[in-house]
Structures are given as structure tokens and as C-alpha cells.
């Protein structure tokens, strides 16, 4: 398997090319092409997983070709333990997403072409190790998303799309500034791996207009990624975009795109500016707390099911942030508590993956009910449990996964985040455990209102979840259950990379510079 | 006393001349012109030109001005003739005029004029009459022809249909 990473990125693009040559009325053919393109991609991710050496933390399967030599820009791809779970998750969700959108009837050709293009962008971001390439894929991802929301979305789609677009564009512009700042202050290279070695020293003591360059770049990049996460003050695009986007796009949005933020912070902010981690981790934990509480309270008040799930994403990503902040526990000032750092960082990365599967599942399930009842008002249902027992069962499991029930994967990652962050941020962690209660409250309350009580007469003919829909949910459900019972395969996959990140942060950090 | 009268006459002349060019209503301009012409007639008196004073009053005030007022009345409703009495050249026009005045004044003040003041005034009528019939006869005839032509021409032009 030469150049497997390139294949991963470009296979969907081949799909786009093929779709372009198919007449627009051959919709089934288009769907089959999309399914096979993502299917092959998914199989390749599994192959990648199989041949990935999880005991090593170095970049594997690297591909490095000169691209624009005059600016020292390379076509540089590679995976390590941080990106490989995301790559696999992306392969899976993109594949599933094709089937979720199987019933799209409007402009099928355009939809799937854009869908595959989106896939290219996401895959590219996770795989590229050259900042320039990274940024290009980052932007490539944005445009199809804009059209997918804006053309195939709900009633407010244009507004949602433009808001999403502007929000993320704002973020990526800040990111670009940060990237250029790094480029010029660290010896004119875009190579992330090289920067990881060079940047900490190069940024040491560097000031711009009297402000530490490190802080400026950190903040710029952080905001760029925080919008994707989304971190508290930058979160309002998310409910709107989620609610308006078509189901499959919501799935990808929640499942993958939000992870890009955390991935970016870990890859770039943590890798390149370990000093900044110390400086910022308190704020990170605090923002995580706000995310947890704010998202939870907002979700509690929602009447629209999809919006509830969207706010639950805000809530869940908060745990990830808290876990990430725990990395400093391994530092000298915190008594070299490597245990906590591993738990926290591992939990954060695991939470990323789990939220990917769980929220994807939730969005698919919301889509299922929306397709049938044509609305998502929580109060508008009632008693569906007796009408759709299978659907109810699956939803119950998904909801329980969302509220962090042990035995399902969400619990482990949340618990790890908490346990990891606890030694460093006791107050914040204790306050954020209220989030556990809020999680349970909004999920169970919504569950009760939708499924319990007397069956709403309107829905006594509502059909049960069908096979196609089951096919999209069940794999996610199995993953959630499997990792909930036995998380080791995942944690083994990432742990050596997590260790190297922790080591990097701890060893590179010179508190004197701050 | 006479100096005071001269001052009054001069200022009436100049102020009413300004009134002619600046007033918004045409009819006011005409009336201002009346005062100007009177003032000029007054100046002629100071210049010992008795005949010219009479002619000035007769022809200008009695003739031309009446003609003008007739013209105004024929072409304008008096009350409505107030708008846009000036064109956009007013600013630059005033500048140019002022410059003209300054230049002229400079010229006047710089020039050493030949000036002999005669001892006392004499009647001018016979002198003018003699001159018209002798030295300026041809011009006199010419001007009478011109006057006639103008008369006929004006009459023809002013008809409704040409």
C-alpha cells in the first residue's frame, strides 16, 4: 500500500470526478458511486489501522513531496496516534452519512459531489502535516459545507449557512494570521513536525509590540480552533447550523468537524507552543466548565429536539476541554502527576471520538423521527415507545450514551477527563460534575416527553425505523457499546502519542519564559 | 454745502447702481436704475453740463427707463419675477468686476491727468448746437439714420408674428 494516505484523501475526489460525468437523473448510480468511494475510503482507513504501529509515537506512512519550493511548502502527509482515530472515524461516518442521505431527492448529483468534496477536505486536514496544506484543506472543507447547509437545509438554511460560513471563516482568518506569524518567526517553514521542534525555542522571549508573540499566536490559533470546537463564546453558530443542516451533514458536523477544533489545539497549540499550554490551561479548563454548564442548561430549555442535541454537543465538548487542560498535571509544579495527565489527555481524545459516534447517532435518530413526523418539537410527540419499540430502544441507548452511562463509551472518556483534571483544577471539576446531572436531566426529560405517556393519536400509524436507518445506526451503537465495555483498543492506539505530547509539553516548557 | 450735496448724489448713484445689479426683483432693479440715472444727472450738474442733465432726464428717465419698465411688465409677472435673477457666474463675475474696479482705480490714480479747471460755468446749449451742425454734422446725420433704423427695426421685431 504505497501512498495510502494520498489515496485516502483523493479517492473521494475521484468519486466527485465520476459523479460529474453521470447524468443528473441517474440518481441511484450517483449514490452507489458515492457509497463506493466512501466505502473504499473506509476500508482503507481500516487497513491503515491494521498496519499502524501503535507502540510508536512517530509519524507513520509519511509522504513528503516538494510542492512550492520557493516558500518551502511541502505536500506532507502522515498519521500518528492523535490523528488515526479521527481518520477512522471520518471514514466510518462519511460512509454512513451516504446512507443517511440516501433519501435526498433534491439535486442529488450536486449533493453527493459536494459531500465527497467535504470528505476530501476533512480527511486532508487530519492527514496533512504541512501548515499550508492543512490550511488549504481547512478551507476546502468550508465551502461544500456552506452549500450543503445552504441548499439542502431546513427553512432557515441560508441564514444558517451564511452564519456558519462567516463564523468559521473568521476563525480561519485568525488562524491564517497565526500560521503566518509562526512561519515568519520560526525560520520560514510550514512543516508542523519541524515546527514542533523549532517553534518552542524560536518563540522563546519573542515579543511583538511588547506582547509575547507566543501568546498572540496561541490566542489567534486557539480562537480559530475554538470556533470549530465550539468553545463557549463562539458556539452559537452550532445550534443553528445543526438544526438547519440536513441529517447527514449534521452527523458529519457533530461527528467530525467539531473534532477538528480539538485536534487542531492538540496538534498545533500543544505541539508548537508548549509554553502556552501552561499559560492557558486554566482558562481552557474554565472554558470547559462554562461549556459544560452553559450547554447543559441551554439543552435543558430547548423545545426542538435537534437543537437539544446540538447544545449537548457544546456540553460534551466541554468535558474534552477540561481533560485537555489536565496535561499540565505532569509538570514539575504539579508534582509530576503523569497519571492525571494521561487520564486527562487520553480522556479528551477519547471523548472526541465518543462524541463523534454518539452525537452522530443522536442526529441520525433525530433525522429518523423528523422524516416521519416532519417536525422536531419535543412537546409534539408523546408515547412513541409503544408505537416504535425498536426505535425507542435504540434512542434510549443513544440517550444513555449521551448522558454518560457506564457501559457506554461516553462514560469512560468523561470520567477520564474528570479524573485527569481533578488534581489540578479541583474547583472547576467539582463544579462541572453538575454537568453530569444536567446531561441526565435534559436527555431523560426529552426522552420522557417523546416516548413516554399516552400515545399521541396523530402518530398511531408512524412506521417503525427501517432497515436502512438501522444500518446507519447500529454500527455506531456497537462501537459505543464496545468501547464502553472495553476501551483498551482505542486507548492503546493513542497512548504512546499521548505520552509523547505530554512529554513534549512538560519537557519543552520553561516557565521562566512566561 | 455743495460738497455735501455731491456726496449725497454720489452715494445715491452708486448705491442705487448696486441695487440695479443685485436686487432680486426686476422691477426693483428698474426703480433703482431710476435713482441711478437721477444721480448721474446730478453729477452732470456738478460738471456744469446743463444740457446734458436735461437730456439725461428726458431721454433716459423719460424714455429708456419707461421703455424698460414696459418691457418688464410685458414679460414678467411682477410678483413672480424674483427667482433666479442671477446666473452661476455671480461669484466669478463679482471677482472679475472687483478686479476690474481695482485695476481701473489703479490706472486712474497712477495716471497724471491733464486737468485745467475753467473759471466759471457757461451755457452749453449753443455750443453743442454749433458743434452738431458744424464739426459733427455727419455723425449727427448718421445717428439720426441709425435712430430711424432702430425705430423701424424695433417696431418690426416687437410684432407678434415676424
Amino acid at each position, binding site marked *: 500500500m504505497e501512498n495510502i494516505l494520498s489515496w485516502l484523501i483523493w479517492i473521494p475526489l475521484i468519486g466527485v470526478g465520476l459523479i460529474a460525468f453521470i447524468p443528473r437523473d441517474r440518481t441511484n448510480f450517483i449514490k452507489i458511486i458515492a457509497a463506493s468511494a466512501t466505502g473504499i475510503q473506509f476500508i482503507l482507513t481500516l487497513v491503515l489501522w491494521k498496519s499502524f504501529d501503535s507502540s510508536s509515537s512517530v509519524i507513520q506512512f509519511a509522504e513528503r513531496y516538494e510542492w512550492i519550493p520557493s516558500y518551502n511548502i511541502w505536500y506532507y502527509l502522515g498519521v500518528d496516534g492523535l490523528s488515526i482515530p479521527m481518520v477512522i472515524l471520518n471514514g466510518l461516518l462519511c460512509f454512513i452519512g451516504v446512507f443517511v442521505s440516501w433519501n435526498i431527492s433534491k439535486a442529488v448529483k450536486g449533493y453527493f459531489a459536494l459531500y465527497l468534496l467535504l470528505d476530501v477536505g476533512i480527511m486532508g486536514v487530519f492527514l496533512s502535516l504541512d501548515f499550508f496544506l492543512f490550511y488549504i484543506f481547512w478551507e476546502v472543507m468550508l465551502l461544500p459545507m456552506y452549500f450543503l447547509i445552504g441548499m439542502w437545509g431546513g427553512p432557515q438554511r441560508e441564514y444558517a449557512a451564511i452564519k456558519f460560513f462567516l463564523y468559521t471563516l473568521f476563525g480561519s482568518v485568525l488562524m491564517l494570521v497565526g500560521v503566518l506569524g509562526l512561519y515568519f518567526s520560526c525560520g520560514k517553514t510550514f512543516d508542523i513536525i519541524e515546527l514542533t521542534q523549532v517553534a518552542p525555542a524560536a518563540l522563546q522571549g519573542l515579543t511583538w509590540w511588547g506582547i509575547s508573540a507566543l501568546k498572540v499566536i496561541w490566542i489567534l490559533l486557539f480562537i480559530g480552533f475554538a470556533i470549530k470546537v465550539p468553545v463557549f463564546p463562539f458556539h452559537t453558530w452550532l445550534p443553528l447550523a445543526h438544526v438547519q443542516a440536513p441529517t447527514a451533514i449534521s452527523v458529519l458536523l457533530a461527528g467530525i468537524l467539531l473534532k477538528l477544533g480539538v485536534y487542531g489545539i492538540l496538534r498545533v497549540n500543544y505541539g508548537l507552543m508548549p509554553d502556552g499550554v501552561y499559560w492557558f490551561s486554566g482558562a481552557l479548563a474554565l472554558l470547559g466548565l462554562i461549556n459544560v454548564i452553559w450547554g447543559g442548561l441551554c439543552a435543558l430549555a430547548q423545545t426542538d429536539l435537534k437543537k437539544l442535541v446540538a447544545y449537548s454537543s457544546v456540553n460534551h465538548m466541554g468535558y474534552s476541554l477540561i481533560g485537555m487542560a489536565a496535561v499540565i498535571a505532569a509538570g514539575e509544579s504539579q508534582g509530576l502527576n503523569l497519571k492525571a495527565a494521561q487520564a486527562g489527555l487520553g480522556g479528551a481524545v477519547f471523548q472526541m471520538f465518543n462524541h463523534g459516534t454518539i452525537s452522530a447517532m443522536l442526529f441520525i435518530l433525530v433525522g429518523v423521527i423528523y422524516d416521519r413526523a416532519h417536525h422536531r418539537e419535543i412537546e409534539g410527540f408523546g408515547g412513541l415507545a409503544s408505537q416504535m419499540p425498536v426505535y425507542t430502544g435504540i434512542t434510549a441507548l443513544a440517550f444513555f450514551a449521551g448522558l454518560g452511562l457506564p457501559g457506554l463509551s461516553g462514560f469512560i472518556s468523561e470520567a477520564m477527563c474528570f479524573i485527569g483534571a481533578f488534581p489540578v483544577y479541583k474547583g472547576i471539576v467539582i463544579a462541572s460534575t453538575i454537568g453530569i446531572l444536567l446531561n441526565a436531566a435534559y436527555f431523560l426529560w426529552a426522552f420522557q416527553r417523546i416516548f413516554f405517556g399516552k400515545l399521541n393519536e396523530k402518530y398511531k400509524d408512524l412506521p417503525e425505523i427501517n432497515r436502512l436507518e438501522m444500518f446507519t445506526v447500529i454500527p455506531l451503537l456497537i462501537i459505543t457499546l464496545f468501547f464502553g465495555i472495553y476501551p483498551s483498543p482505542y486507548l492503546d492506539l493513542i497512548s504512546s502519542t499521548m505520552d509523547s505530547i505530554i512529554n513534549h509539553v512538560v519537557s519543552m516548557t520553561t516557565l521562566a519564559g512566561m | 454745502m455743495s460738497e455735501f450735496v455731491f456726496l449725497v448724489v454720489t452715494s445715491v448713484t452708486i448705491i442705487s447702481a448696486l441695487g440695479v445689479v443685485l436686487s432680486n426683483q426686476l422691477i426693483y432693479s428698474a426703480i433703482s436704475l431710476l435713482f441711478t440715472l437721477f444721480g448721474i444727472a446730478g453729477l452732470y450738474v456738478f460738471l456744469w453740463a446743463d444740457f446734458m442733465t436735461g437730456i439725461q432726464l428726458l431721454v433716459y428717465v423719460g424714455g429708456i427707463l419707461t421703455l424698460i419698465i414696459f418691457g418688464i411688465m410685458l414679460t414678467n409677472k411682477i410678483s413672480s419675477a424674483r427667482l433666479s*435673477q442671477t446666473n452661476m457666474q455671480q461669484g466669478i463675475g463679482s471677482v472679475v468686476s472687483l478686479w476690474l474696479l481695482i485695476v481701473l482705480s489703479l490706472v486712474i490714480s497712477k495716471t497724471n491727468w491733464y486737468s485745467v479747471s475753467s473759471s466759471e460755468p457757461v451755457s452749453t446749449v449753443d455750443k453743442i448746437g454749433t458743434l452738431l451742425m458744424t464739426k459733427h454734422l455727419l455723425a449727427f446725420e448718421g445717428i439720426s439714420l*441709425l435712430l430711424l433704423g432702430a425705430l423701424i427695426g424695433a417696431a418690426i421685431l416687437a410684432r407678434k408674428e415676424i
Partner: protein
Amino acid sequence: MNQLNTYLYIAAILFSIGIFGVMTRRNGIAVLMGVELILNAANINFIAFSKYGGMNFDGHVFALFIIVLAAAEAAVALAIVINIYNNLNTINVDEASAIKQ
């Protein structure tokens, strides 16, 4: 006080005012009035030079001619103005450029 220069200044002022009037007024009749001012300024000069030039009456004769001319001019001009007014319903000189044709 009563000397040549005084009259020359007065004439110059009147002349300038007259020029100003001619340049700025839109109304044909008003322009005509400006012209009258100019002519009068000239007349004042003639008469003044006549007096201070040793009672030479040629100046008076010229002034007389000018008055006659002015009268003729006024008559013709007013006739034209009235004609224009009849045809174009305006006597503003800048609008009456159709006459150029």
C-alpha cells in the same frame, strides 16, 4: 473733492457695477440695465473730461450721441426681448440659446 479723479472713480465704480450686472444677470432686461450703467459711466467720463479739459464740448456731443445710441439700443433690445418672450416664454439669456441656430 470736485476734481477729475473723483468723477473717474465714480465712473469706474459704475462701470464695474455695470459689467457685473451684464455678466451675472439672467434676465435680458436686467442685462440691458447693466449696459445702461456702463454707458452712463462712459458718459460721466466724457462730461468730466469735457469739463476738466478746458470746457471742450466735444465730450458733450459724444455723450449726446451715446444717449441716442442707448435709446436706440434699448428700443431694439426690448423689441427682441419681447419677441423672445413671445416665442420661448422666457427672457433668460442663458436659456435663450436656441437663437444660436
